[in-house]
């Protein structure tokens, strides 16, 4: 009976917004630099790669200054040496106000639009325009909130909100969404609030002075404010950051901003873009708008072909271009679309424009540190010996493979009801999952028994 009660216990209500999935680089919170731009050995999820991080820090300062347009940076290094991690670190340190667009080199090969269109869209997504816009807000002191739940228990709630200023008083009908956000913000009678009419966003300004009592128990963060004056509905200037691409989309069709939601934007005419560039520079001269050059990050840049590179060469010369960060793990290889070989698969004239940051393989100590950080991120406890074994695996196979083993070993450990991952658990998953070199070894041994092996064909060209 008691057991039954325990199983039917209502699960705790968790705040939905706090559940996040763990990605490959979710442990990175910045570049881990101090004020003098020196890299700390272990900081903000980054380990080692001191020189590259310092270099990235200098680039970051350049971006933050916002003065220089159209610089390009290449992060080159072996697989699993933290190239994407450095790019993510830059994105994290820039903060939410600077546009950061990340894409993979292969993303531009779409059937719906040309390669250069995809690239120009990506470029324009990485340029932000900060501009003042007027919106309608309701600002007032809450006199009364009344929320009625339907008697049947189901159906929409209805609510009324009475707001006042020093001059007037108005009753509002509330929609379901509004009722939810009001109760989430814990708005009570006596609070002074603003409501954005278009988005329905509520912000609490504080408590009204008229409601202040001598012996009220208040949190220290509660502020007292005056009851607003004049009309309840006001027009207020707010600062918005939109990307050039968003302005393009709004202007490229007569349906206006609805196109933003329909997803399919198609190609945007170059005349529209020119008009918008002219308009934006006009705003800038009048002091109405501010241009925020952001970052465009292209991962796996060797996937771009010769046409894209020549387009990039040209695009980087525009004064409305972002800082371009690229990453590649290739050595000397064929440039896509030609028969020429070139370092990183990038033409020499393009390479000439780049600042190149090299990443180097991690040392044993650094590998150990990274594995420790990942264990914390994935919520797996590792014993000292297991940690050593995993570090060896990481050094001898690859760091990625070792990271993959963390969560699988954690699961094996949980199945045997252990609290800490032991060497046995690591051994178990090591035997269950092949790493890349063991897999190739296996292939070489058993190649003959696989399908379609009757005829000898030349090796497939994968470059």
């Amino acid at each position: 009976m008691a057991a039954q009660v325990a199983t039917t216990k209502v699960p705790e209500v968790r705040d939905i917004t706090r559940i996040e999935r763990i990605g490959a680089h979710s442990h990175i919170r910045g570049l881990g630099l101090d004020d003098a731009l020196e890299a700390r050995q272990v900081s903000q999820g980054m380990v080692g790669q001191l020189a590259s991080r310092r270099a990235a820090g200098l680039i970051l300062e350049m971006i933050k200054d916002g003065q220089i347009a159209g610089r390009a940076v290449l992060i080159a290094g072996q697989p699993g040496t933290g190239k994407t991690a450095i790019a993510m670190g830059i994105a994290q340190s820039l903060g939410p106000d600077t546009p950061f667009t990340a894409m993979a080199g292969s993303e531009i090969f779409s059937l719906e639009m040309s390669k250069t269109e995809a690239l120009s869209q990506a470029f324009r997504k990485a340029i932000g325009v900060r501009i003042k816009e007027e919106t309608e807000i309701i600002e007032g002191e809450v006199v009364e909130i009344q929320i009625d739940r339907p008697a049947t228990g189901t159906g929409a709630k209805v609510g009324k909100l009475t707001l006042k200023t020093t001059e007037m008083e108005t009753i509002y009908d509330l929609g379901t969404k509004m009722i939810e956000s009001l109760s989430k913000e814990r708005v009570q009678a006596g609070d002074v609030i603003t409501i954005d009419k278009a988005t329905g966003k509520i912000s609490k300004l504080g408590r009204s002075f008229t409601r202040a009592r001598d012996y009220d128990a208040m949190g220290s963060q509660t502020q007292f404010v005056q009851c607003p004056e004049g009309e309840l509905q006001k027009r207020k200037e707010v600062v918005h950051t939109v990307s050039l691409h968003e302005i393009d989309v709004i202007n490229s069709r007569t349906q206006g901003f609805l196109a933003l939601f329909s997803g399919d934007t198609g190609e945007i005419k170059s005349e529209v873009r020119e008009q918008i560039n002219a308009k934006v520079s006009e705003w800038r001269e009048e002091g109405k708008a501010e241009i925020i050059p952001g970052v465009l990050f292209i991962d796996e840049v060797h996937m771009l072909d010769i046409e894209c590179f020549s387009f990039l060469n040209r695009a980087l010369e525009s004064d409305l271009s972002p800082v371009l960060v690229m990453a590649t793990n290739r050595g000397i290889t064929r440039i896509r679309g030609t028969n020429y070989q070139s370092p990183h698969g990038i033409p020499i004239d393009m390479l000439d424009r780049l600042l190149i940051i090299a990443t180097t393989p991690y040392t044993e100590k650094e590998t150990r540190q990274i594995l420790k950080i990942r264990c914390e991120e994935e919520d797996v406890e590792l014993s000292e010996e297991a940690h050593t074994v995993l570090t060896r695996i990481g050094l001898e196979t690859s760091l990625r493979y070792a990271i993959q083993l963390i969560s699988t070993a954690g699961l094996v450990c949980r199945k045997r009801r252990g609290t800490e991952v032991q060497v046995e658990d690591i051994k178990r998953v090591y035997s269950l999952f092949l790493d890349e070199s063991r897999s190739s070894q296996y292939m070489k041994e058993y190649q003959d028994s696989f399908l379609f092996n009757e005829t000898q064909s030349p090796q497939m060209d994968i470059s």
Partner: protein
Amino acid sequence: MAVQHWADALRKAKKTALISDGKRKAHYLFEDGNEMAEEYDLKTDELVLRKWRHKTTFGGQGQWTWEVGETNPNDITSDVIKENCSNPLFMRKDTKASFQWRIRNISYPVEVYSVSAEPTERCCVIRTSNKKYYKKFSIPDLDRCQLPLESAALSFTHANNTLIISYKKPKEILTLEQELLVELKKLKGTSEGDIDCKTQ
């Protein structure tokens, strides 16, 4: 001079007119991309409706905003927040000789209200001594022609739960409206049915 400026803007605007259900409807597309729509009663030639659509900051199309005429509050189907139907309803409805505003559904006695013009802010203010209603409104017609605002021209009455505020139209406005009406009547509008309408 400023009157002339507005008259020129009207003249240069691309005008389309049509007559349907007893109203003369006119649409103006101005050079800056803003749009204005007007409706006149065929019998009395009174302005029934005037609405504006301005370009948004980023060049997209905005919403229609009513300047004159009845706004339908039920039209705004916002599921977020809207004014309760028990609140006073503000609208403008002009007569030949004056600009006129009506506030319906307002039941306080006449002593409560005070209406004043504030020339510095270029707006009129309605106040209530019981602090239940307050409204600031401008007269766009005067703003467009940059004519001064005079408190003497302002008056108000209250009857049948409605507060009516009138502002006597100045001479300049009256002549301008006359001219515009003549101009509109000259426009060859299709009498009924579909006309070519550029949608894209």
